[in-house]
């Protein structure tokens, strides 16, 4: 990924919500680069800031949210750099959907129940200056075929006539309608059944290969991230604590939280497993702990962790981590993995 050009660059982004209890730090000092054709998966528990971050990227935050610091730089197809936070309403409209689209979770609620799917598509296209219905229709039908829907039938139906999986596919097609460079998927398979999830994942993989868009993929399910991502970023309490190529993150995690998540995820292909949860619960985002935000729950924590927050540092090529004890975490992970692989061998023999 290193040599490829950067499509979306986020630098030092912080977002707070104003609540009755005070300022809630939902995203703090997040930086990352999204390259052309790359899929970045954000993993983490609920309340870790994944969704806020993405709403921030699209500038879809509610009124009580404030982007305190940071910069979002988008590079369009002509190579021109656009500062997303400085866009006025009109260019922002153009940016959304035709440059950067979002596929929301919960397909049930994202489609207008009282209009036909076709009208939704015409309206979208119309709002972005595509008035030739014939062309729009052709494009939509082609996309429907790509997401493995029966094009004619779906095009002329109401959302309630479609199943959850079909609606999710309509949303994906709708997101891709204006050929955006970046697509943000917010838990696109969460509410779906296993077999439907599988076919959506396959559709996404094929589409990505065919159309070459970059995507940011939010998921709380590690397995889905393992399936689809090129790069994985772990978020905890509004910060990216570790980011790297998918294999590095899954096989050589260096942050105690990432390791904890891995150890808490059951795998089907392994026989009997010993899993461990992470003690405690995520911190209150209004009153954040000092130092490393994870130190209260961290089995590796030392005195420094309680006072000084660790900075993101390069651990290996493309792999950054914010943890003082990253080498111990790495060793521990290897140890645990070797135990689980012997369990696997024992089962196979």
């Amino acid at each position: 990924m290193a040599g490829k050009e950067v499509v979306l660059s986020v630098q030092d982004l912080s977002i707070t919500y104003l609540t009755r209890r005070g300022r809630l730090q939902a995203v703090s000092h997040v930086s990352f680069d999204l390259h052309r054709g790359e899929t970045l998966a954000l993993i983490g528990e609920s309340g870790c800031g994944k969704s806020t971050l993405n709403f921030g990227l699209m500038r879809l935050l509610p009124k009580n949210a404030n982007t305190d610091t940071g910069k979002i730089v988008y590079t369009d197809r002509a190579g021109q750099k656009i500062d997303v936070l400085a866009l006025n309403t009109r260019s922002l409209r153009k940016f959304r959907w035709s440059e950067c689209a979002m596929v929301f979770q919960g397909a049930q609620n994202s489609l207008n129940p009282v209009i036909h799917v076709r009208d939704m598509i015409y309206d979208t296209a119309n709002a972005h200056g595509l008035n030739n219905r014939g062309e729009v229709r052709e494009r939509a039908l082609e996309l429907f075929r790509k997401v493995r829907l029966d094009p004619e039938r779906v095009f002329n139906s109401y959302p309630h006539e479609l199943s959850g999986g079909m609606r999710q596919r309509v949303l994906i097609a709708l997101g891709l309608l204006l050929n955006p460079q970046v697509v943000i998927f917010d838990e696109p398979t969460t509410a779906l059944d296993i077999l439907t999830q599988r076919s959506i994942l396959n559709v996404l993989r094929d589409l990505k290969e065919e159309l070459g868009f970059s995507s940011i993929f939010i998921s709380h399910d590690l397995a889905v991230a393992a399936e689809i991502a090129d790069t994985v970023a772990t978020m905890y309490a509004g910060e990216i604590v570790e980011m790297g190529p998918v294999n590095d993150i899954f096989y050589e995690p260096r942050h105690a939280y990432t390791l904890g998540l891995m150890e808490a995820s059951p795998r089907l292909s392994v026989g009997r497993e010993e899993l461990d949860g992470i003690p405690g619960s995520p911190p209150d985002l209004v009153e954040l702990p000092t130092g490393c935000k994870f130190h209260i729950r961290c089995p590796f924590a030392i005195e420094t962790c309680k006072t000084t927050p660790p900075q993101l540092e390069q651990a290996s090529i493309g792999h950054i981590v914010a943890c003082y004890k990253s080498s111990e975490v790495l060793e521990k992970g290897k140890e645990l993995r070797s135990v689980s692989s012997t369990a696997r061998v024992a089962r196979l023999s």
Partner: protein
Amino acid sequence: MTTQQPLIELRHVHRHFKKGRTDIPVLQDISLAVHPGEILCLVGESGCGKTTTGKIMVGLLAESSGEVLYEGQPIHGRGRKEKSEYRRSLQIVHQDPFASLNPSHTIGQILGYPLKRHHLVSNRAELRRRIWEILTLVDLTPPGDIVNKYPHQLSGGQRQRVSIARALSVNPRLIVADEAVSMVDVSIRISLLKTLQNLRDRFGIAVVFITHDLALAKYFAWEGRVAVMYLGRVVEIGSTPEIIGSPSHPYTKALISAIPEADPIVTRRKETLPLRSDDIPSLINIPAGCAFHPRCPFFVPGVCDQEVPALEPLNGYGQEVACIPLTQGMGLSIRESTAAS
């Protein structure tokens, strides 16, 4: 295990719900037995009848036809006392910890009601001691901090522990955990399951674990059994390692091959069983014969679409499967002619 008297047994249970004038058959011919201290997982996709089965087991829903036996005796037509006894022995933990606790009562009150209702405590001191004890059992410590709190002051994981504590407070013999951890974060899930496992080991409580997540079922019920449900019927049942390691029914095979794994190399090498159709048939219009036949890649025309397959033993290990080509020794093979992409 088979010689033992089952704690609860469903025999040919059917259940339908009415919607307007149509009858929706949600459960058809379910026969399941849960033995004391056993873990049974019900897995399947949404709408397959897992929750309905669980609710019928604990008596929250009545069966439309068939029999439900508690310790060999029908649950209906019992006297008041016996009924209360049966109700007490079978408890359920619901999915949503935000909806299943009364927001205007403190945790102490919530845990106190069932104890008083079933006359398990005789005075206030005893009630207090019992509540303290239960909260400690489910790792909600120190209990003194918890009892006077309201549900909204607790996190999702803590609330679910309160739900478990409430189910546990009346010394049940069976707990039905209906997607009890699916709304809880990954990091907290495992410790909740461990609590449930410890309780089972300590008190010999049978657990019926309802989930759509097979990996979680595998972890929780390694020593138990898994029943796979599809459109209101059990299609395969057997010991967990058997079902996960060598699934027999085409639907189970498809499910297991479709689940992504938290391991990038393994998951990307996985070969998915291609289905003939992605659409789940509606319960109002269940296909004739085997309900899975319109999607099954091993579909045998003239066999699968004619007769409803019954659960039959497949091997000597107690694995049972409802698939005619399998149980009649025809074997499974993908027929290219019928496989529409």
